[in-house]
């Protein structure tokens, strides 16, 4: 659904993106993460065909952003990190304008506005002016305006920024529902990784204007499907030779003491089952055998703490 090939973006005095490439499949919910100034917003704006990359190709729903920017605009909804609303318009008029200006026919605009309001749970405030809404509700109205034309791709840049914890939770649930019900391809940039965990199926890390961590990774509940799994073991009774027994059973010990251990297992679920069987056979008094989920936050921190990779050809 989104293809990005060797995208370079130059500001007059600095390069913001250095040959970024990745692909996002239809229906994926991607967490776009990275430190401040990494190039996330620039990348999103290029994908949204709001800014023009210096080099490289971006296709959204098959449309090249350079050749057919207006087709890209029609295919997506983009909510920037700093957005505005028409404060003097009511929620209904805001959504009607959004629908009509996004190509929804006059005969269907009312229904589209109502549907969008229902999706963000604003349908009970249709006659309230946008300027009278709280920050959380304004965020919801902005998202409703962004999805009123049923885009195939939704880009949300730091949507939870500035919201209180309750509003964040509501927003998180709302995006989760959108992802599950609409089939949209969603890209969410955020620093609040624990919330992305709930609904993101993939993660892409941008660091220093480059893709870090090897490209698009499985995230959230899929995160442990990698080649290695960490497993925590807790014993019901201490066993002094636990580390020795684990090594004999073929497990790579990360850490161990008499009461428990963390081991690394290669080979997926079957290897984990086999290890469990060997430990039980060896008489290890296991109380818990728990695969450890590698959270987005862990993956993110591991990547950002790696030393910066020099950029070939970059001037000082």
């Amino acid at each position, binding site marked *: 659904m989104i293809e990005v090939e060797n995208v370079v973006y130059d500001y007059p005095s600095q390069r913001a993106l250095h040959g970024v490439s990745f692909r996002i499949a239809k229906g994926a919910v991607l967490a776009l993460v990275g430190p401040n100034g990494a190039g996330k917003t620039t990348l999103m704006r290029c994908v949204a065909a709001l800014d023009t990359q210096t080099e490289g190709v971006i296709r959204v729903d098959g449309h090249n952003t350079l050749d057919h920017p207006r087709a890209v605009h029609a295919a997506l909804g983009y909510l920037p990190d*700093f957005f505005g609303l028409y404060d*003097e318009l009511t929620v209904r008029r805001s959504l009607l304008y959004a629908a009509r200006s996004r190509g929804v026919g006059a005969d269907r605009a009312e229904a589209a506005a109502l549907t969008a309001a229902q999706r963000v749970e604003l349908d009970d405030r249709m006659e309230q002016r946008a300027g009278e809404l709280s920050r959380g509700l304004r965020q919801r109205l902005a998202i409703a305006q962004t999805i009123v034309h049923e885009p195939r791709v939704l880009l949300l840049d730091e949507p939870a920024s500035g919201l209180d914890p309750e509003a964040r939770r509501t927003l998180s649930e709302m995006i989760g529902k959108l992802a599950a019900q609409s089939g949209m391809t969603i890209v969410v940039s955020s620093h609040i990784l624990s919330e992305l965990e709930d609904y993101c199926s993939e993660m892409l890390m941008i660091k220093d204007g480059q893709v870090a961590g090897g490209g698009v990774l499985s995230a959230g509940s899929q995160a442990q499907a990698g080649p290695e799994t960490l497993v925590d073991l807790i014993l019901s009774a201490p066993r002094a030779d636990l580390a020795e027994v684990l090594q004999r059973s073929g497990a790579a010990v990360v850490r161990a003491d008499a009461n428990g251990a963390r081991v690394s297992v290669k080979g997926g679920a079957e290897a984990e089952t086999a290890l469990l069987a060997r430990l039980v056979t060896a008489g290890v008094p296991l109380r818990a055998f728990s695969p450890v989920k590698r959270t987005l936050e862990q993956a993110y921190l591991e990547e950002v703490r790696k030393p910066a990779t020099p950029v070939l050809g970059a001037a000082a």
Partner: protein
Amino acid sequence: MNPELQRNLWLEATPRRVAWVVVALALVLGAVGVVTGMGGENARDVGRALAVTGGVIFVVSALLWGSREAGQAVMEEIGARTWEFQRLSALTPWTMTWGKLFGATSVAWMAALVGLTFAAADRAVDQGAASAMLFVISGVAAGVIFHAVAMSSALIGVRKARAEGRLATLRGSVFGLIFLLVLVWVVSGAVGGRGGGFDFLAGDAPVVWFGESFPRDGFVAASLALFAAWAVSGAWRLMRLELQTRNAAWWWPAFLVFAAVWAAGLASGAAEAWLAAFAIFVAGSYVSAFAEPADRIRLRQFAGSLPRGDVERTATLTPAVVPALLLAVIAAIGLTVVGSESSSTLVQSGNDAREVLNRALRDDATPAFALLAFLIRDLGVIAFFRFGARPRRGDFGAVVALGLLYLVGGALGSAFGDSVGGALFFPHPDQPIVSLISAALQAFLIWTLAARRIAGPDRPANA
């Protein structure tokens, strides 16, 4: 209905605002009528007083208030952070342009048309219905020109601000309108034969255009209507750029050629016609040098696409100053050819050929090419400052530098070397060869420096 027009009407033409405007107009016009009537004037004098008041209402509402609203139609979107949402809309650039142009100014137009009606009614009594109709067409076209120029200037300001990494302000619209007023003043006055003023618009004598005589009010109405169409189409072309639609570089040269033909038609001879065209192309070169964003990325892409022979891409990346400058060169050549033709006529009439040739070079060709060389130098100065490390101060720096070169340099040169010294710093009519050589050397020097700035670092530093 156009959704952009609808939204603007929702926001601008609220029942409360409309009611206030109606009350204010009724009070002003009513007061003028009552005061004039109480002064013992007859009905005709009351009508004239109302017409003058209507004219003032039109100028204030259409030209001042409406222009502000047209500029704000874009600037308020920037301030309210709704512009990106609009840029992503499915509206065509044309729908967006006219929706904003007539929606944002709807209440101002309402007041302006009331004023124009009073002014036109008085004209209908004095000069007949046809004259009143032409007067209304002229008024409406003038309003549209002002609004379209205000919106275009705002759009230019938005593009420049984005390239220079600063927030856009309404300053662009103000500069645009001031430039428009100066242009109208110069053109109108020049045609009226006095070098400045609004004689052309206000006079009664027929207009001679390419040898044909036209009633002045009809000619003015037709001219304003045509320029209004160009102004609106200019706003549309700039809106296309904001909505990420590529523009081939035909509009600007086409407009300059139209303006040049219009002005040439008013000239009294072939040399004056070419001179008028030359002046318009030179002015167009300066305008485009300041109006386009200082975008070195785009210039690098232009420089890259040119040798590849990628015509379509090159056409969209060509800086607007390039066709304007080429047109100025063509006009300078035209001026030379016309000068040669008049010289031949003089030779055939028995004049000394050598003297005639010298006169042609002095009076026609060399001054034009000296001016051209100074133009190229000035474009280099503008580029040098606008592509500097602090682009947001580039325009100001370029204006100051040009002012110093022309005023201080010219004054010093004249003080030390009479006409030859002055000719080193501005196109001197008595020393065109000196001016040409001096300007060419200066142009070479400043463009060498400017090119280094535009090229910048080979590859931008890491983010």
